[in-house]
């Protein structure tokens, strides 16, 4: 059994990305324990001089550190990810670098047809920044378009093809976690470099 953290990439009360992560949690309960984390109560990042993570941020970082992998589900705002998700990632990169070398899988849902495609591309680029250096699973795009119509009353995805696609990606992710850990263990110097990263002294 793997232990994963699922991060809902929005602070909105109503979110189909929350529904999607809840569905993933339920659907793969025999393969992984997934704890779903909200970021809506995190303070907005403001680059404090003391570089201290606020309590809520530290709590999330500790959970990420302990987890085998992270699943982020993000909506799309203005061709990109919501500011609140970006703010969360800024906290992590600026204070404790909890995502370094952490295997990450991305999913996304949107009300429109495109299913958060541009947001996912931005999110990949952001997570790939040296200050974050997450290990994002490549070649695995999972998009839910028309997400308001995608779930039934019990919060289950109704499209069987989409479920199969998700199962494949999720199985890949479990293997990806193991492979990444092998890769990461052989190269500890990356971690040191990224841990010492500073926006000021690069």
């Amino acid at each position: 059994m793997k232990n994963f953290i699922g991060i809902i990439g929005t602070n909105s009360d109503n979110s189909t990305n929350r529904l999607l992560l809840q569905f993933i949690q339920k659907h793969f309960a025999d393969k992984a324990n997934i704890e779903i984390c909200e970021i809506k109560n995190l303070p907005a990042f403001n680059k404090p001089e003391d570089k201290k993570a606020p309590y809520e941020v530290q709590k999330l970082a500790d959970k990420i550190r302990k987890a085998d992998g992270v699943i982020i589900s993000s909506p799309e705002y203005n061709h990109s990810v919501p500011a609140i998700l970006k703010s969360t990632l800024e906290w992590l990169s600026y204070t404790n670098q909890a995502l370094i070398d952490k295997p990450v899988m991305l999913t996304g849902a949107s009300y429109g047809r495109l299913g958060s495609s541009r947001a996912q591309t931005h999110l990949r680029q952001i997570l790939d920044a040296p200050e974050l250096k997450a290990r994002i699973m490549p070649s695995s795009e999972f998009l839910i378009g028309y997400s308001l119509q995608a779930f039934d009353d019990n919060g289950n995805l109704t499209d069987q093809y989409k479920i199969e696609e998700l199962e494949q990606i999720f199985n890949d992710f479990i293997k990806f976690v193991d492979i990444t850990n092998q890769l990461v263990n052989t190269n500890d110097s990356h971690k040191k470099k990224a841990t010492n990263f500073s926006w000021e002294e690069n």
Partner: protein
Amino acid sequence: MKIVGIVGSNADFSYNRILLNFIAKNFKKLIDVEVLDIKDVPMFNQSDDQTNSEAIQYLNKKIVEADGVIIATPEYNHSIPSALQSVLEWLSFKIHPLDGKPVMIVGASYDVQGSSRSQLHLRQILDAPGVNAVVMPGNEFLLGEVHKAFDENENLKDTQTTQFLEGCIKKFIRFINVVNIVESPEGMKDVSSTEDLNATGTIDTTIEGIDMKADDWVEQAAKATGAVEGDAYVKLNRGVLTVNQINHFLNSMPAELTYADSNNQFLYYNYKLEEDEMLASRNPAQVGSPLADCHPERAFSSVAWVIQQLRNGKEDVVRTKVPTHGPDKFVVHNYQAIRDADGNYLGINEYVQDIQPIIDWYLEQTGQLLTGGGVDAASGATTKVDTVSSATVKG
């Protein structure tokens, strides 16, 4: 011109704020910049609409009233800061002050990248339908290693960087004017009617009684006026030459010269090459024709626009480059106003030139190299500003 400068960071200390203050101070003769902070704007939350809060309404009002917006962004994690992202989310949720607004992007960062990746993200975000800003293309101003870039008075140390920035600002002013036309009902307007391109009027020098469109207009007009030719002497300011000498002299000019009078009649060109050898083709039978007969109808509006700039005294010269001659030539059409001593508009001197040989000669003589298109942002070039956009010159 009123410009709002938005500091893309909510940090207490921000070099992007310093950069915007520098722009406001240094280019105040060109634009009137008010620098605005986003520190007080709350984190966007669609479940907690704060569109009506003071901070957001203040930004909204300032942007709506401005002619254009300059956004200065740092780079956090290959992207723009969440604080800026949050502002743009508020400004695309219930209100849309940036819709159709001309926007210029600048950015500064501590590393050599100078906010290169965040600027691209910002472009994509500003292009989203909810924001719908009109972002100036090209003219990418990236200020890398920003902690070394300013002196103690918060002025940019490097004069070339300042010059490049000034060039970007001047382009932005033009861009705002262009966007205003695009966004206005006038944008669709055909301005060809502002000029009498068919030369139906007459001016003091118009040679009347001859069909302007006749192939032998020159011969007929010369006969009607008793024009001198050949070895006849003409007194000029200042000199005396024969007509032949004047012809040879004009033909030796390193440009194709055309004279159209203020009645929009094509009166002269320095005929030395046949039509298909010219940079801008003319043929002997065209001389005498109204300008409407020398251009396709779809060009009438632009022709009229150019003449208006010169006739109204808005410009003394309008230039346009014509890229269809291949990479070895840089062909410029110059429309120079001809005016009398009192400044009255007499017509156009259109001179068409390939200026590439002049540029090459200048570089050879001075040992200078052109930078710009050749500077590679990724290789950490020593110049602080990567002028990736200026593709017209190659080093």
